[in-house]
């Protein structure tokens, strides 16, 4: 069994265009949530948009005007190439068997929904190439081609796409870690990407779980989530001589709560099982966890469930915990990609990142999230959670080298 190291990281979200700008947002406690400006929608809710338009992203990535590329893929290319360059700048050269594993929930829906609205009455019309990126795998393959075009990035021996709703990227990281541990891969580029679109915005609105104000995770007045977009990727490696690595991925788990298609049990069965099993894989006791990065969407259902699980697992010694959702929204399939990058940096630099928009705890749980900001804090092990529709609960453990 081989150890799994994080040797590179890249991220883009409403909180910033790279890892440094994310840390800066956390330091200044600055939220990236705002009005939807990049596409037309009848809904007036806050969202976490990446500030760059598609053409700005294409320009930065040096991609010529054609062919069609979904925003989901563009965001993924940006974060994954940052992660790759980050690993290279630390002196790593990716060789041996290499995998690319992406998580996404919408794929190319941002383009398909426009095509459908315009042409659904006459499907013989319109530029057919614009729907060629509808399926999720198309975005991953576009990212693979882009990475291959970067000098020093060899091809991929393994490539796949995962979609388990909001835990997609968490499960992509877990698969990469398992494949490295078992020796099937030497390096894995893992994470997730999702762009905002009307389809998902309206989907969550139809479920009545969007807050018309900025989300307030774990606060007594919390009333729902805000959606976001972005991408986050890690480079995982088995190389035990890594001195410039961020951290190790020591624990992981994927369980199904099997309770409700879109709701969470108030007792937190799924989150409890996920965190307990991830600790077991890591060989850690609850008392060895320094910090918990919760899924913490801001919906009363999720946050009660997750709080119950934290109390069940840690009892009177719940470690400091946060939710990052008020910085960039819930980025769905990308969420654990974006947040895993933040966790990897938190372990490496000993950063404690504080929750936003908290004033008093949920009655009944009394749990108070960490709301400060601290560097050089010394963090040994972080648990990071992501939960999705269908009862999918995933937890990862990031540990100091």
């Amino acid at each position, binding site marked *: 069994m081989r150890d799994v190291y994080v040797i590179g990281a890249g991220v883009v979200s409403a909180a910033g265009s790279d890892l440094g700008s994310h840390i800066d947002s956390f330091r200044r406690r600055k939220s990236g949530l705002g009005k939807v400006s990049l596409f037309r929608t009848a809904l007036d809710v806050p969202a976490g948009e990446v500030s760059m338009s598609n053409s700005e992203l294409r320009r930065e990535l040096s991609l010529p005007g054609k062919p069609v590329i979904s925003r989901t893929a563009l965001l993924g290319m940006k974060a994954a190439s940052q992660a790759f360059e980050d690993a290279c700048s630390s002196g790593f050269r990716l060789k041996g068997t290499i995998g690319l594993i992406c998580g996404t929930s919408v794929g190319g829906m941002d383009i398909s929904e426009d095509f459908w609205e315009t042409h659904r009455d006459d499907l013989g019309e319109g530029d057919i190439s614009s729907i060629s990126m509808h399926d999720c795998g198309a975005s991953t393959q576009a990212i693979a081609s882009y990475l291959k075009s970067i000098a020093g990035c060899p091809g991929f021996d393994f490539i796949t796409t995962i979609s388990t709703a909001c835990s997609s990227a968490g499960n992509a990281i877990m698969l990469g870690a398992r494949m490295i541990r078992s020796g099937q891969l030497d390096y894995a580029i893992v994470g997730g990407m999702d762009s905002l679109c009307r389809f998902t915005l309206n989907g969550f609105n139809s479920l009545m779980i969007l807050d018309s104000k900025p989300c307030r995770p774990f606060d007594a007045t919390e009333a729902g989530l805000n959606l976001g977009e972005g991408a986050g990727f890690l480079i995982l490696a088995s190389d035990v001589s890594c001195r410039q690595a961020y951290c190790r991925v020591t624990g992981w788990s994927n*369980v*199904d709560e099997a309770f409700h298609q879109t709701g969470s049990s108030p007792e937190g069965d799924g989150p409890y099982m996920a965190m307990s099993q991830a600790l077991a894989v890591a060989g850690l006791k609850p008392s060895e966890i320094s910090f918990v990065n919760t899924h913490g969407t801001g919906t009363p259902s999720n946050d009660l469930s997750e709080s119950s699980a934290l109390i069940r697992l840690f009892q009177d010694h719940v470690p400091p915990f946060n939710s990052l959702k008020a910085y960039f929204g819930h980025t769905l399939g990308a969420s654990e990609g974006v947040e895993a990058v933040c966790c990897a940096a938190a372990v490496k630099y000993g950063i404690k990142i504080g929750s936003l928009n908290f004033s008093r705890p949920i009655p009944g749980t009394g749990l108070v999230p960490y709301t400060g900001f601290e560097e050089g804090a010394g963090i040994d092990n972080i648990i990071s959670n992501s939960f999705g529709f269908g009862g999918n609960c995933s937890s990862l453990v990031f540990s100091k080298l």
Partner: protein
Amino acid sequence: MRHCYINGYALIISVDGFDSVDRDDSKAFFDCLYNGSHVPRDSFDYKKIISDGNLRRRMGPLVKSGVAAGLLCLDGVPSDSVGGIVTATGLGFLSDTERFMNDMIDRNESMLNPSPFMQSTFNTVGSHIAMIRGIHSYNMTYVHRGFSFESALSDAMMLIDEGAETVLAGGFDEMTFPVHKLLVRLGSAPKFQNGEISGFVLLSSIRTGNTFAELHCVKTRYGHFSEENLEKWRSDVALSYGTDLESAGIFDCDSSVSGPYMTDSASVLCNALEKGSGKTFIRNDFCGKNHSLILLDIL
């Protein structure tokens, strides 16, 4: 690697409009292949497999088909012995996606029914099976074109190797008339125009009297290669498992009933389990870029 056996399989095909010679173009085609026998259409009843009427009525066509095929495979298997449910779909629940999209446009983004949105989520089949059977273990969904089912099957094998006793793995996709029209324009439409196909297998670490096959490996290879290069790759895979392509039975995805279809290998595997014997390869070269080989020994 621990040995990995296939102890059950179920395939449900319900489609319209084949253009092949041996099937009537104008008539809907139905088949359910379950552990070696065909269930006649008259005696096949979704109600018997998915007994919760409210749940069943809310299900879109592919959700119902996928859940039913998965539950058939799990029939008689204790829930606590299931170490994972791993599903695959290329395009997901198209009927539900279209329904929600049309509602959103027609109703100008207000007062929308959330059911088709919830069901358009790719992991819906896997999670429904988990909920119906109370299975709390690993639950995963792969959505990568011609690699979707291969990824699921290879993850399921890895779970067996990691210690799971039983793992359910399946692939499913549907076609709707509008999407078929679009795929014709893109030059990659399957041979049927409307309907759904779901294929599941039950993997186990234990060989029993009901074991159908031993699964040896699932290999994928991504990119454009010359036919010569691909043939060498396939031979090398065969060789590493002590066989060669000439002496093994080969089932090709493009020759099956469904034509170019993202999770075709799931139904081809089920057909191979019924018709094949001995060393068998399932060969897939989806869109000239997603190449895969599944090697099994059919008992």
